[in-house]
Structures are given as C-alpha cells and as structure tokens.
C-alpha cells in the first residue's frame, strides 16, 4: 500500500519539467539520472532568478503597493499570510472584491503618508500586525 502511494506521488510532474521535455526530453532524463548542470547553466539560472525577482517586484509594486510588502517585505511570511487571506478568503466573501479594489486604490496613498509620518507608520504597523494575527488564527482554525 505504501509503495502504491509513493508510486502515485511520483507521477506528479512539474510545469518546468514539461517545458524542458518539449525542449528536449533527454535533458529531463539526464536531470533525473543525477547529471549535474554545467557551471555556466547554474550561473545563467541565478541570473534568471534575479531578473525574475526584479520583474515580480516591478509588477507588484508599480501598481499594487501592498501595505504588507511595504511594512514587512515581499518575501516575509506575514506578507504571505495576508496574501493567502486575500486570495482564499476575502476574494470569495460577498463584497470582498470591492474591498480588495478599494484597498488597492487606497494603499499607495496610505504608504506615502506612512513614509512621511512616523506615528502613522506605527499605527499602520499595529493595525496590520493585528490583521496578520487574525489571519493566522483563521488559517489555523481552518486547518484544524
């Protein structure tokens, strides 16, 4: 039974492997056979990752200006918690999308004010900290 389960799991295939297989199936076979990519390929991959990060930052901050990203950083776990709350809970609530739209409209202005005023920054941080806490509790309740 355990063997069946592990076999089922291993049938999962990633989109990047599927893309690579279109490029050349043998390159996927070599990867799974344990071949190590060349140094040049690893360096190119690192450069690609960096450009991806820049691209993501650009599209997410140009127009989105997430308050959480501003307060905690894009990669922070608290930012991720709020993103999940937005996508998995708020987005499905009645009026949730309007709330999200209003939030996106207001957040650049809120961030600008917060940058200029330390007490607004402090209040904002407290409010968002509390929101993170609630979102985490909600996530835990949902999991259990």
């Amino acid at each position, binding site marked *: 039974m355990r063997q069946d389960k592990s076999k089922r799991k291993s049938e999962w*295939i*990633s989109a990047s492997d*599927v893309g690579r297989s*279109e490029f050349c199936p043998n390159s996927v076979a070599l*990867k799974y056979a344990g071949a190590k990519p060349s140094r040049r390929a690893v360096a190119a991959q690192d450069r690609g990752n960096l450009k991806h990060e820049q691209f993501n930052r650009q599209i997410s901050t140009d127009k989105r200006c997430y308050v959480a990203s501003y307060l905690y950083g894009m990669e922070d776990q608290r930012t991720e918690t709020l993103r999940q709350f937005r996508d998995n809970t708020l987005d499905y609530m009645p009026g949730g999308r309007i709330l999200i739209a209003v939030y996106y409209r207001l957040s650049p202005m809120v961030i600008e004010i917060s940058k200029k005023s330390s007490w607004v920054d402090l209040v904002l941080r407290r409010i968002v900290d509390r929101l993170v806490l609630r979102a985490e509790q909600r996530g835990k309740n949902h999991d259990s």
Partner: protein
Amino acid sequence: MIHELLIFIAVVAVLFIVWRQRRDSLVDELGIEGDLIWIDGGRHTKPFFNRAFKVFGKPDALYRTRTGVLSVEYKSRNGPVFESDVTQAFCAALAARGDGYRVTEVLIKTSAVQEIFKLPSSDKALFDRIQPAVAHARQAKFGHAVPSRPELKKCRSCGFRGDCNDSAA
C-alpha cells in the same frame, strides 16, 4: 422616503465610482488591463496542483481581466517565445485551474517580445495540447528511454550537454 432615495443614490454613486475605477485601473507596463490577483513570491510560494492531471507549477503572475484570468510567464532571456515556453506556461495554467483559477489566456514575455495565447476552455483540451510533453517528462522521470532533439543552438544552451551522448554542440 427622501432618506431612502438619498441612500439609494449614494449606494449607486459608490458602486459607479468603484466600477469606473476598476474599468480604468491597472493597465500596467505589460499592457494588461486587470487586477493582479496572485504573484509568485519566490521559493516560499507554494505551487498550484491539478490532481486530475497530476501536474503542478507556478506561473509568474495571475491577473483577473474582463474575460477571465490571465496567466503571465516571464522569461528573462532575449529572443523569441519558444514552443517549450508555451508548453510550460500552458502546464502552469492547467495547474492553476486545478486550484480554482479559471485561466483563459496566457501571456509569455521575454526581454524582447511578448505574446498572448488563448486557452481551450476545457481542462481536458488544454491537457491534450501538452500531453506529448507530459508523457515524455514522466517517462524521463521513471528512467525510461526518451528521444533527444539535438540541434546546435539548443544543445549549446543546454546545461546537461556535458553528459549527453547525442549533443550536437
């Protein structure tokens, strides 16, 4: 009665403003008119899983547009969009559909160009489009024999060419 009318007018006005803002909003530098609803935040962001087809993956971003959900695949290199980019993007879109995002279009952007592809509406038809590549990838994963596609340009850019007996480079 007048109060109720005023409240009704106020509600309609607020809805109209929100609608106008949404309509005019977010034509970003990709030329996408829509709301950014998901972004790949790096290695901490979990991929999407499609249990029906056993594929997983992450697009770089998802936007909600007027026609549905648009998935963005970014390639940092210069040059055109290759078939392998399209296949990867379609597979990531299928994975996102498995987690409830009805992806209807895919935008693939390189540093030089960007192209938009419309997706089939059914998941099965989308899977059929990428099925040969999925089958080859699974065979390769299980250690079965798979074909190689040696071409000078491809092999030069392949990180495994040192271990490949069929390399054209």
